């Protein structure tokens, strides 16, 4: 793979990651967000595969299949289960769309500012894409604190996690396969647990608005 093609493919992958993140903030429908999350998982797997081919590392290709299976298929599938029964799948945000998109712009700028000392002098195009990963982490935080539905919070958490995975791959080519497997398994179980809690919340509270969760306080 030529260096120019490699740089372009990395840029395409990273661009897809950022685009899906921004669209997740813009769209309030839970189902649309889940589809975007699946797309983002595929984009992340693509990015890892490109790096694997470029560095001719079989291990990274194996990891990219793992990422595709987990973030592209399994997690969105877990989230999308029972969504037909929810009925209304919209979510109200604490921010209006304009303010939310403005915050995304600010957070992305912030991501570039804070990650400059780390990657500013790097020559590898993959490391130049690291700020995108940081931006995803920050946008994930934004979703986590501004969305009201339990499931949307879960999506925010997954976006944050995708961002961390993106940084991990871009900056260090990922950690070892075994560790990657452990990390993925942990993530999958956490999502299943939160999904179960969402179901219990619906049966106990009648809805999944996290504003309901305010019985415990001092």
């Amino acid at each position, binding site marked *: 793979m030529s260096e120019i093609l490699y740089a372009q493919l990395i840029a395409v992958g990273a661009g897809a990651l950022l685009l899906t993140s921004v669209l997740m903030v813009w769209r309030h429908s839970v189902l649309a967000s889940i589809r975007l999350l699946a797309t983002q998982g595929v984009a992340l797997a693509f990015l890892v595969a490109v790096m694997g081919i470029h560095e001719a590392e079989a291990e990274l290709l194996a990891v990219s299949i793992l990422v595709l299976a987990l973030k592209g298929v399994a997690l969105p599938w877990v989230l999308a289960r029972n969504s037909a029964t929810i009925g209304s799948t919209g979510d109200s945000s604490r921010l209006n769309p304009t303010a939310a998109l403005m915050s995304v712009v600010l957070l992305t700028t912030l991501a570039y500012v804070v990650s400059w*000392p*780390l990657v500013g002098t790097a020559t590898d195009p993959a490391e130049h894409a690291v700020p995108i990963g940081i931006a995803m*982490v920050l946008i994930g*935080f934004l979703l*986590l604190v501004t969305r009201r539905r*339990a499931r949307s*919070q879960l999506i925010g*958490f997954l976006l*944050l*996690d995708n961002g*961390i995975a993106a*940084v*991990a791959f871009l*900056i*260090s*080519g990922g*950690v*070892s396969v075994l*560790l990657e497997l*452990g*990390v993925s398994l*942990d993530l999958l*179980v*956490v999502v299943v*647990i*939160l999904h179960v*809690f969402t179901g*219990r*919340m619906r049966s*106990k*509270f009648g809805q999944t608005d*996290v504003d309901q*969760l*305010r*019985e*415990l306080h*001092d």
Partner: protein
Amino acid sequence: MSSVLWIPLLTPIVVAALSALTNWPPLRRLAGVIVSVIVLLSGVTLVIAVTQGQVPTSAGGTLRADALSAYMLTVVGAVGLVSNWGGLKERGADDGKNSGQYAALISLFLGAMSLAVLADNLGAMWVAIEATTIATAFLVGHHRTRRSLEAAWKYVILGSVGIAIAFLGIVLFYAASIEAGTPTLSWVELGNNYLALDPTFVKIAGALAVLGFATKAGLAPMHSWLPDAHSQAPAPVSGLMSGVLLSVALYAILRIQSITDAVLGVEFMRTLLSIGGLLSLAIAAALLIRQRDYKRMLAYSSIEHMGVMALGAAVGPAALPAVLLYMLGHGLIKASLFVIAGRILTVEGTSRIADVRSLLTRRPGLAVLWLIGMAALLGFPPFSIFFSTVDIILAGWASGMAVVMAVALVLMLIIFAGLTRLTASMLFGSAGNDPADSIGSDSPSTDSSSHGPRLPLVLAFVVTAVIAFISTPIGTLLAAATAALAGTQ
């Protein structure tokens, strides 16, 4: 000797599988006790090996028991034993189909903590600490009430986000090691100065990792899940989470600190931990004064004690033996207190402090235990928390942190006053206010039963009371553990 490393990891899995798959009541009832005993025995075996100068390793160095790991494993086992044994229900008092799930999860919880302290690999440690969140999620939500569901949701979301941030930090450590030419996640190697790690990377990595693990350690400002989760979980789970899971997270911070200290010097982490420690003390002080629920009171007291331990960690090697002793003392006492709180909740039916009055005359069996436990927690000698606190403050004073220690001391005094007032109002108080109460107390039915096994609590109190005076095995072990952190072993 290295095969001993596998015992505390594999036994919990076997016990968990057996209690989930087979329907044998004694195993389900005793699963937590069995696993705790195994972990404790493995810990003691490893401590003996370590004091003889060995450092057992296995799995290509991924599992490693230096003095600190062996000590932490012993603490996990000891606190686990007190929580599970003290929290044993009477035979036949099982809650049906959930008991298998409960037994399996509590075994896995203990196994995950064992892996966290035995792994010489930041990644494996991360996976293990995340696994503790997974194992405890359903344990916190075990009662399936609205409140426990709320607590469990907040706990899992905040815990997972925190731990995800820690992962980002660990990845940056890895990236730094790649730039230095030796890709590794072993802290033994990362903490060695011959790997010329990039200070910029290490600074950001260390800050993120500590921020993440501080979430699990219950340090302010990432503590907000803690009072909810610890007050809603069943008593043995609260005991384990407050008594030892927080310390395991602090252990992770200590390991991270050993890397950043080697690369950046002590000032960087000292600043971070001092801020976290003082904030924790301030928040605990503010919320303990007007606390109305005795389980939440214990939870906030955990935030306070973690704050003091963080300050000790900030001081560095001079205070570390005291911090490690603190972990054991606080773990045993807090586990006992949560167990007693669980019993008070069962017999009184309320966790409001205002509704529990004159316990000492009505239920002396529980009240005496509660009084001893609270005295130890408040830091009365001869209990080890007293000596640990004094050591930390003196060491801090000697190493130029006088202002920090002075502020901490003031906050601790406020907390002391608040806790004393709350305990006194539970134990003494006026019994005549409540009509329902006077009906119960007009007959001479003073309830001197301890409503559960008394021996584990007595053992915990005795160990905490004498341990600070045993210098030969304990003192040398703690010194060796401190040396292990400094990379001199």
